[in-house]
C-alpha cells in the first residue's frame, strides 16, 4: 500500500523514458533532461504548496545546488555524478535546515518575501564575486560515473531519470505518511493541529528542508545537463518565478504533475522562442494568467479528467 499506484506509475514512466532516451533524437532527450531536472525543484515547491506556502525564492536552493557542482568541479576537480549530487544535497539541506528555523514561523506573503530576499542576497553575492564566476558563471566539465567518462549525454539522462524516480517515490511516501498528511491539516487549521499535540513549526521545518534538498538536487542535475551555471538563469528572482510558474502550470494534484508540467514548460518556452523570439515571454505569461484564471488545478487536473472519464 505504501508503495502505491502513483509511485508505480512514476517508476514505470521514468524507466520507459530512460529506455526511450537511447532511441530518440538528441534534442528531444535534451528537452526531457532539462524538464526532469527542473521538475525536482518544482516537486519541492509542490510539497510547500500543500501547506499553502509559496516560495518566491526557491532559486536560492536551485542555485546552491548548481553552484556546489561548479565549485566542486573547478576547485577540487570533482566530476563524479554521485559525489556532485551528494555535495549539492548536503549543502542545500544544511542551509535549508538552518534557514528553516526562521522560515518555519512565516506564512503567506511574508514567507514569499523572505524567501525572495534570501535568494536575492545569494544572487547579489554571486554577481559581485569573481571567485564565484560573477555574472558569467562557469562551464562545468562533463560528468563521470565511478571513474568512467562515457561519450554523449545519454548516461547522464539515465542518471537523471533514476534520481527523479527515487525522489518522486520518496515524496509520494512522505505525502502518504502521517507527517505528510499533517501538511494539509496545517494549511486548514494550525490552531487545531497545535492543540491536538503536534508541533506545527517542526512539521513545516521538515517540509522546508525536504523542498530545499529537492531544489538543490534539481540545481545539481540542471548544471550538469547544461554543462554550465550562471546567476541570471539559476539564482535571480526570475528563475524563482519560473519555478513557481511551472508549479502552477503542473498543479498540486500529484507528484507526477511536476514532471509533465516541466516538460510542457520546456517545450512551450523552446517553441515560443523559436516562433516568436520577441514574444515568448508574452506567450509564457499569457499561459500563466490563463491557468490561474481558468485552470486552478493545472495541467494535472486536465489529465485527471481525461483518465477519470476512461475508467
Amino acid at each position, binding site marked *: 500500500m505504501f508503495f502505491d499506484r502513483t509511485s508505480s506509475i512514476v517508476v514505470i514512466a521514468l524507466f520507459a523514458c530512460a529506455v526511450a532516451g537511447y532511441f530518440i533524437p538528441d534534442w528531444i532527450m535534451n528537452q526531457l533532461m532539462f524538464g526532469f531536472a527542473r521538475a525536482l525543484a518544482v516537486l519541492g515547491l509542490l510539497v510547500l504548496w500543500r501547506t*499553502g506556502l*509559496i516560495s*518566491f525564492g526557491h532559486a536560492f536552493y536551485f542555485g546552491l545546488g548548481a553552484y556546489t557542482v561548479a565549485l566542486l568541479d573547478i576547485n577540487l576537480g570533482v566530476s563524479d555524478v554521485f559525489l556532485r549530487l551528494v555535495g549539492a544535497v548536503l549543502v542545500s539541506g544544511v542551509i535549508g535546515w538552518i534557514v528553516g528555523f*526562521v522560515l518555519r514561523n*512565516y506564512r*503567506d*506573503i*511574508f514567507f*514569499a*518575501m*523572505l524567501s*525572495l*530576499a*534570501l535568494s*536575492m*542576497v545569494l*544572487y*547579489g*553575492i554571486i*554577481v*559581485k*564575486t569573481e571567485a564565484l564566476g560573477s555574472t558569467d558563471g562557469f562551464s562545468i566539465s562533463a560528468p563521470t560515473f565511478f571513474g568512467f567518462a562515457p561519450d554523449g549525454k545519454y548516461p547522464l539522462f539515465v542518471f537523471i531519470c533514476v534520481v527523479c524516480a527515487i525522489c518522486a517515490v520518496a515524496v509520494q511516501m512522505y505525502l502518504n505518511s502521517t507527517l505528510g498528511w499533517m501538511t494539509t491539516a496545517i494549511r486548514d487549521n494550525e490552531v487545531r493541529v497545535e492543540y491536538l499535540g503536534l508541533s506545527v513549526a517542526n512539521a513545516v521545518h521538515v517540509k522546508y528542508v525536504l523542498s530545499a534538498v529537492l531544489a538543490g538536487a534539481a540545481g545539481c542535475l540542471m548544471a550538469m545537463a547544461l554543462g554550465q551555471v550562471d546567476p541570471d538563469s539559476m539564482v535571480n*528572482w*526570475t528563475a524563482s*518565478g519560473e519555478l*513557481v*510558474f511551472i508549479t*502552477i502550470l503542473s498543479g498540486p494534484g500529484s507528484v507526477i504533475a511536476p514532471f509533465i508540467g516541466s516538460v510542457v514548460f520546456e517545450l512551450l518556452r523552446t517553441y515560443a522562442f523559436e516562433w516568436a523570439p*520577441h*514574444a*515568448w*515571454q*508574452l506567450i*509564457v*505569461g*499569457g*499561459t*500563466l*494568467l490563463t491557468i*490561474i*484564471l481558468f485552470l486552478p488545478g493545472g495541467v494535472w487536473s486536465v489529465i485527471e479528467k481525461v483518465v477519470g472519464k476512461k475508467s
Partner: protein
Amino acid sequence: METFITNLLNGLQYSSYLVIVSVGLTIIFGVMKILNVAHGSFYAWGAYTSAFFIGKFSDMGWPDAFGFVIIFASAIAVGLVLGFIIERGLLRFMYGRDEVVIILATFGLFLVLEDVILLVFGVDPYFAYQPMAYLESVEVGGITRDVYGLSLILVSTLVAAGCWYGLNRTKWGNILKAVIFDREMSVSMGINVPMVYTVTFIGGTALGALGGAYIAPTVSVAPGLGGEVIVLSFAVVVIGGMGSIPGALIGSILIGLLRAISVHEFPQIELFVIFAVMAVVLVFRPEGLFAPAKVRKI
C-alpha cells in the same frame, strides 16, 4: 567632504526615484492587498512612452522644455490606459483569491507587458536627453551636478507630500483609509469599493509610470528596465512596511543611501546589502518598520 556630498546626492537621487515607484506599489497593496509584480512594467512603460514622445516632439522642432509636459502626460496616460484595462479586465476577476496567487498573476502580467513593450517600441534603445540638456548643470559644494537629477528630488518630495496630504487631509483620503481598515464595513457604509479599487490602481500605476518617465532622460531606455526596479521596490516596501506611505519613504531613503554608499565605496556588496537589509527586517520585524496598525483577529 566631496565624496560625502557625492554619495549623499547620488543616494538622495536614487531614493527619489524609488520613492515615486514604491509609493505607487505600497498604495496598491494597502488598499487592494495586491503585491503587484507588474508594477515594474508600469515603470518601463512610463519610461518608453516618455522617451518615445520626447524624441518625436523634439524631431518636430518643439522646445526641449516641452519634455517636462510629456513626462507627466505619459505617466497619466499610462496610468489611465494600462491601469484601467488591467484592473477592470483582469484583476477584477482575481479578488478573493489567495494573496500569493494574485502575486503570481501579476508576475504573468509582468511577462506579458515586457514583451508588449518590445512589440510596440522595438528592441532598440531610446535616448531622450532633451529635458536633461535643457536644465544644464550647477555646482554644489564644489561638485558639478546636473539640475535634472536634483529636480528628481523635488518631484519625489512633491509626490510624497501630495500622497500624504491626499490621504490625511481630504475626503478621498478618508474613504481610502476606511477601505484599507475594513473593506466589508466600507461596503456596508455605502462606499463604492470597486470604484475605489479602480481609481487606486490607476493612481498607483501612474506613479509607477512617473518614476520611469522621469528617469527616462537620464538613462538609455532599453529592454529589461522593469525587472530590476521591481525587486528593489519590493525591498523598499517590505522594509518600510507593506501598505505604509511613510514606510515607503523611509525605506527608499535607506535603500537609496545604502546603495549610493556601497556603489561608491564597496561596489562588490551593492545588491547584497539591499536584500540583506530586507531579510534582516523581515526576520526581526516582519510587519516592516512602519507597518500600519493591524486589526487583531482573536
